């Protein structure tokens, strides 16, 4: 297995290099360049535009620009963003990507759990109102037009019920006298969240060995432990209400995203589980006298999990890409809209930086998915 992982890492480096080359020339091939936004501005004559182009290095031939970019990239310098002029790309990305990632990771993880649980139930109890009802609901949610649905959710929950804010990252009036700025509170929230997640994972692994009556609650207990550890530092600190404000703003987008995407996982799980359920080892497990739940969760679901895991891991990798519409409608200041405008305006360093980030995530997601297959289905071996 280690040799396999090492070989994959070498392939990752090679693929990433190829990907960067292709993306650079693809971005460069788009007609026009960053100075085209000044075409209609009478105060900026063509000579000034030429000067801007020369200063940004855009008058050199494409391959020279490419070599320059790669040299900088390999030394860690991602360049300066053309559209937010003097800000380096790393700053822009560091500021916006965490927000996008947190939103989409949480939504993906929650929708995966909900979808998987529902899919299991759907496959196990075929026929009847429950199956039809849930399938119709799921398919409708999956195919409903996202911007309209998101706007309807805002209208219903924020306007009519007044439960959640209508959008954006923070409530400015609350933060006017805050001791530190929102980004730093957010980073600390991410860190405490990650620590909570790690605690939950460790708790799951440790509690596996507990005696039988308590083992049923392993999942809930570790989740509880993780949540308690994540929330503990905030409850007592004066920054607690600021963190709560951010969480409150995140609630509605996550709810909407979960509703839209749970059906994909649910239908995939149902399909996959139906295939596994007819296997002989399920019959053997039932004949042994195991309770239905154990047969379903421990034997059938594990093998059924394979395509679902692949799809889940890839959705995680695409957290940045899928966000434009949702981020626009909820005015969530993340990477989605920035990336789209960077591509359309040809802000090459910013676009390349963001795509490199997504690219690395996607490659590692694929590797993790492959390793998970071998773990989940021992019959699969890599030579």
């Amino acid at each position, binding site marked *: 297995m280690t040799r396999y992982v090492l070989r994959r890492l070498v*392939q990752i480096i*090679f*693929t990433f290099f*190829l*990907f960067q080359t*292709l*993306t650079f020339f*693809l*971005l460069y*091939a*788009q*007609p026009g360049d960053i100075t085209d936004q000044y075409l209609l501005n009478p105060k900026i004559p063509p000579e000034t535009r030429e000067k801007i182009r020369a200063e940004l290095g855009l008058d050199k031939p494409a391959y020279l620009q490419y070599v320059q970019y790669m040299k900088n990239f390999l030394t860690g310098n991602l360049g300066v963003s053309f559209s937010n002029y003097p800000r380096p790309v790393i700053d822009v990305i560091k500021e916006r990507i965490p927000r996008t990632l947190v939103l989409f990771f949480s939504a993906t993880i929650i929708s995966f759990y909900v979808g998987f649980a529902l899919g299991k139930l759907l496959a196990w109890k*075929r*026929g009847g109102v429950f199956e039809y009802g849930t399938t*119709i609901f799921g*398919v*409708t949610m*999956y*195919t*409903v*037009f*996202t*911007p*309209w649905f998101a*706007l309807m959710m805002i*209208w219903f929950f924020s306007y009519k019920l007044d439960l959640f804010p209508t959008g954006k990252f923070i409530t400015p009036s609350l933060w006017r006298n805050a001791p530190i700025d929102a980004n730093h509170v957010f980073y600390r929230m991410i860190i405490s969240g990650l620590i909570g997640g790690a605690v939950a994972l460790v708790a799951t692994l440790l509690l596996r060995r507990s005696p039988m009556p308590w083992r049923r609650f392993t999942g809930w207990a570790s989740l509880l432990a993780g949540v308690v550890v994540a929330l503990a530092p905030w409850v007592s600190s004066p920054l607690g209400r600021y963190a709560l404000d951010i969480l409150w703003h995140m609630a509605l987008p996550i709810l909407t995203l979960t509703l839209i995407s749970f059906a*994909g996982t649910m*239908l*995939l799980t149902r*399909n*996959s589980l*139906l*295939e596994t359920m*007819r296997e002989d080892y399920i019959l053997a497990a039932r004949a042994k006298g195991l309770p239905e739940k154990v047969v379903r969760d421990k034997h059938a679901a594990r*093998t059924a999990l*394979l*395509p679902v895991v*692949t*799809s889940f891991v*890839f959705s995680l*990798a695409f957290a940045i*890409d899928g966000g*434009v*519409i949702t981020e626009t409608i909820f005015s969530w200041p993340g990477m989605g809209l920035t990336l*789209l405008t960077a*591509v*359309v305006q040809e802000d090459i360093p910013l*676009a390349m930086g963001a*795509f490199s980030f*997504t*690219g690395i995530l*996607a*490659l590692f997601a*694929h590797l993790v*998915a492959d390793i998970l*297959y071998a773990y989940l*289905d021992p*019959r*699969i071996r890599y*030579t």
Partner: protein
Amino acid sequence: MTEPTTAQAAITIQPLWRVRLRLFWKSLKANWALFKENPVGLVGLGIILFFALMGILHPILMNTVWDPTIYDPVTGYDFDILMHPAPPSAKHLLGTDPLGRDVLSQLMYSTQTEFILGVVAALITVTIATAIGAVSAYYGGVVDTFFMRLADLVIMLPFISILIVLSALFNLSMFKLALVIGVLSGFGGTTVIIKSQALIIKVKPYIEAARVAGGSDRHIILVHFIPNLLPLSFLYMMFTVTGAIFSEAVLSFFGLINIRMSWGIMIHTTQTAGYLLSGGKYWWLVVPAGLAITLLCSAFYLVGRALDEVVNPRLRQR
């Protein structure tokens, strides 16, 4: 029962192609009987036929009953009505949009293009993905590595940039857009997921048994791998149709492609004119297009569901 006892009268020799045709027809009828058993599949097929009918009716209506200056989906304008958008009336069954064009006409005109988009993209994606997934799982080694790295590359490449460059180079009609989306999805994420399913099939005992019995590579892939992969492929057919129609709607939103009329453009017009959130008041601007998207995508899913049971006998509810 009296029959001739001589051997010659009992058997008539028929040409091979006729025998094959008859067997094919017989299996088609058997599969159709299986398909019909499930009401879900029939509902899906019914919806698809309904949309096909809408698409076919439009040019007929335009040439006979409807006056092109009023009912043209892009350039029509009704001068008799004062306020556009107008609510549904006898003359405009689904009302008019903010630019004065008949909504029903737009819906029917777009059906043709959306149909082509969805079906072409879905078929191309699923064919490529199933073929490549099965082959790369079966052979492993260099073939597998090559296709998986290619899938990684295709997944990572920015879709929007590709579309911008392509629309600058060629005039992207719906069909070409469907081809691009189909090929990109086919070589990308769908392949990886189908390959993961094929890996499960590869380690099953009957594959080994088939090889021991002397099955060639081609036989094992065509007769064993592909039919077991088909349920997943059908499911991904629905995902691809939805994805293709959504991509086109989103791209129309941002003005990045050049087509005359589509459901995405209808919703975009509503949004730019400010009527998207009007709730119940201007329902005919939002509901037809949105409902059409939902119905068509669900129909493909339902047909895929019913086809599951035809293809995989173990799934039949007997």
